[in-house]
């Protein structure tokens, strides 16, 4: 029955079949690419910061996926606890990074009255 429906409409398989690591990886990839594009495209320093957060989250999704006991086939290896701990460190470092980046942005804003990263060209010869 399931197979019939799934074969009739391939996308329906998404909600009838259990998810696997690959699903998570796709999500992670989309987050990551969004972050990269965001970093590249935005001129607002805070926008760039948000891009970084997205990139880190994309990576985190991967770590969690590889660590999850739900998503692994029988006998396959998972990162187990290590994946979660690494993701934890990523979150902490992201918080630290956000604090410093925000401080730099505010400092930049104090000195230049703008948050446009293209205007940060003081070191240009």
């Amino acid at each position, binding site marked *: 029955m399931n197979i019939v429906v799934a074969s009739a409409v391939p996308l329906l398989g998404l909600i*009838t079949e259990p998810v696997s690591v*690959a699903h998570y990886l796709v999500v992670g990839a989309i987050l990551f690419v969004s972050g990269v594009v965001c970093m590249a*495209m935005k001129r607002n320093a805070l926008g760039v910061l*948000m891009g970084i957060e997205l990139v880190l989250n994309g990576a985190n999704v991967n770590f969690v996926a590889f660590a999850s006991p739900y998503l692994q086939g029988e006998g396959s290896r998972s990162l*187990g606890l290590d994946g979660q701990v690494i993701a934890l460190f990523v*979150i902490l470092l992201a918080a630290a990074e956000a604090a410093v980046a925000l*401080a730099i942005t*505010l400092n930049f804003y104090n000195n230049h009255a703008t948050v446009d990263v293209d205007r940060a060209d003081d070191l240009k010869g």
Partner: protein
Amino acid sequence: MSALPMIAGALIAAPLPVAAINWHSLFFLLFASVSCGFAVAVVAADNVVRMAFYLVLSLGATAGLFFLAGAEFLGAMQLMIYVGGTLVLLVFGVMLTAQAPLVAIKGSGRDRVLAGIVGVALLALLLQAAFSVKPWRAPAAGVVAEPAATPIGMSLVGVRVDEPAVGAPAANKRPGYMLPFEIVSIHLLVVLVGAAYLARAKRRKVPRAIEVAASVEPPASVAEHASIGRERHRSGSVLAGGRP
């Protein structure tokens, strides 16, 4: 685009038996679409405040994905630190600098096209990698995740209590995370101090009325006023000649 009519057609022709729905997958789909959709919205939005809001939703949905993957502690952590802490900080920063001209700085069209091409290319690469992961549709059934909070806590103080993966060394031989934990702690402290130092600005201090009052000499007239006794006075014009 052709998928939608197909789904609709399939639903009409052969109604999807609700029993066939894998609820876990459905919720995954929900969270994943929210997460990815708002991540793309962050890229697409120009208004920095809205970007921050989309980011909140995206990261919140990611926390939901973590919960689905059995990483409850991590999910709560994501909500607490990321969504509750980091992003409030970010929104704070956005508002501090959100003056009309800065709210929406638009990138140039060339940048956009370039970023789009690079992004699509990168995405293609990553998706290729994602789909090549071995167990594409062979997840385990009936696995119940162990509560992870305590093992994570124990591993951070250097003791591993979780079940070792297949082929890994025995429980108490595997490395803990004591040193990284300490490094991160120190790092956070340094960052805290550094950020506070960086964000300062010199500015002219407006003296508070209290300080002004405190800095002036003790008023002479207080003594003068105090010297007047509590006897009743008859006042009048100074020109009226002497007090009666």
